[in-house]
């Protein structure tokens, strides 16, 4: 099939970017979206132009590197799917596809479609862990039973891949789904209780410092999340935060 691609090109963080239009022929429905981008880049490369820069790595939907806003939707039109797992059969011959980077003040563009998501790392560093030594002198793994329902919920929260689609989708560029998923994982496990108060305070403080917007409960984050992380996590974070600030 033949496509018209409108792609955001930006030399570096400080440069002014713009949308550039490309025509691409020979796209096959079996290609993944990123393989389509590979062909475009090979084309550009052959013409002596600089290829489009974008983040990607595992190409099986788990590393969370790929990050494109396709026709206004993070990771494109297919639900519960990362950009790398989106296939071109979702598009028609003659389609025009707009491709933009994640847009947020806290995610500055590095180049073209590649953004800096280190804010997410810093939120995790502020408290997204249990302070247990890794030298192996811990108690037996089965010493503390965990209710299966809580263990499963903690797991679902922990399946967040940290791609940032929630921020990209949110009209306020809020990072609450991401932050709350990590807080929830620990809030649901007995191991996480000891540091629950400081964890939620520190992670929320860092999230605010990074310049993400406020949550207005539109729910766009959950709809666009490729892993189906639920809004309940945000409610749980709000509870945890109130608990931390009032009871301590």
């Amino acid at each position, binding site marked *: 099939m033949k496509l018209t691609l409108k792609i955001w090109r930006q030399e570096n963080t400080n440069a002014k970017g713009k949308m550039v239009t490309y025509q691409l022929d020979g796209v096959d429905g079996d290609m993944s979206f990123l393989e389509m981008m590979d062909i475009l880049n090979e084309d550009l490369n052959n013409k002596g132009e600089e290829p489009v820069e974008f983040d990607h790595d595992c190409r099986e939907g788990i590393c969370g590197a790929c990050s494109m806003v396709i026709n206004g*939707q993070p990771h494109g039109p297919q639900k519960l799917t990362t950009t790398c797992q989106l296939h071109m059969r979702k598009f028609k011959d003659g389609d025009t596809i707009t491709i933009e980077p994640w847009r947020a003040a*806290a995610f500055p563009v590095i180049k073209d479609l590649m953004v800096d998501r280190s804010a997410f790392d810093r939120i995790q560093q502020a408290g997204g862990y249990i302070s247990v030594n890794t030298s192996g002198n811990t108690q037996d793994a089965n010493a503390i039973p965990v209710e299966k329902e809580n263990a499963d919920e903690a797991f679902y929260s922990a399946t967040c891949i940290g791609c940032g689609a929630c921020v990209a989708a949110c009209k306020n560029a809020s990072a609450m789904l991401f932050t709350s998923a990590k807080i929830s994982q620990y809030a649901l496990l007995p191991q996480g209780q000891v540091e629950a108060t400081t964890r939620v305070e520190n992670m*929320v403080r860092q999230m605010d410092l990074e310049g993400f*917007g406020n949550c207005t409960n539109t729910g*766009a984050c959950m709809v666009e999340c490729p892993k189906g992380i639920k809004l309940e996590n945000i409610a749980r974070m*709000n509870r945890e935060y109130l608990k931390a600030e009032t009871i301590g």
Partner: protein
Amino acid sequence: MSALVKSSLARKWVMALSGLFLVVFLTQHFVINITSVIAPDTFNEWSHFMGYNPLVQYALQPVLIAGIIIHFVMGIVLEIQNNKARPIKYKSSPGNANASWVSRNMIITGLVVLAFMGLHMYDFWVHEMAYKYVEVNPEDPTRYYEETVEKFAPIWRVVLYVIAFVLLAMHLWHGFNSSFQSMGAKSVNKGEGLKKFTKVWSILIPAGFIFIALFHHLNHTN
């Protein structure tokens, strides 16, 4: 405590609590207003009570005004912050693919309601204040019904009234339920009933206000 005021989560709480407070006020307001349709005497009686009871006048009224101001000011502050969080906008829009128009445009519905409240304050509250404190008229516990009915005579005011309440309904459609999510209610799965209640309420109360306006308008002109 200071963190509670500064943080984004605290702001959610403030919006939610002030919003819920306004919802309660609106309900109370509606209950009084609907008596104007059913029993004008009761309407006069209750209105007089609200207008002259010192507890209402000097304790509840300032709280209400504060609630309104907090909700609107915070709403505008949030809007400015949220805009700053995405300085460069997307060229393409997903439309309603991931979130409803209503949830994305609370600022629009909110500002229209705010504008309406300006008119409303001018119509009733400013008038009331002037009547009581500037002109220093004597108490008249029977004047409220006539005054109210008279306000709904001009069609332009009824039209504005209807528009404002339709937008208020939209505002509440997202906001009422949203306030529980903000306060950490175990909503999504466990609170289906609560969610349904907020949605029904968001339609019913504004529809009731519209009904009252139309009722008096039609009764008066006929």
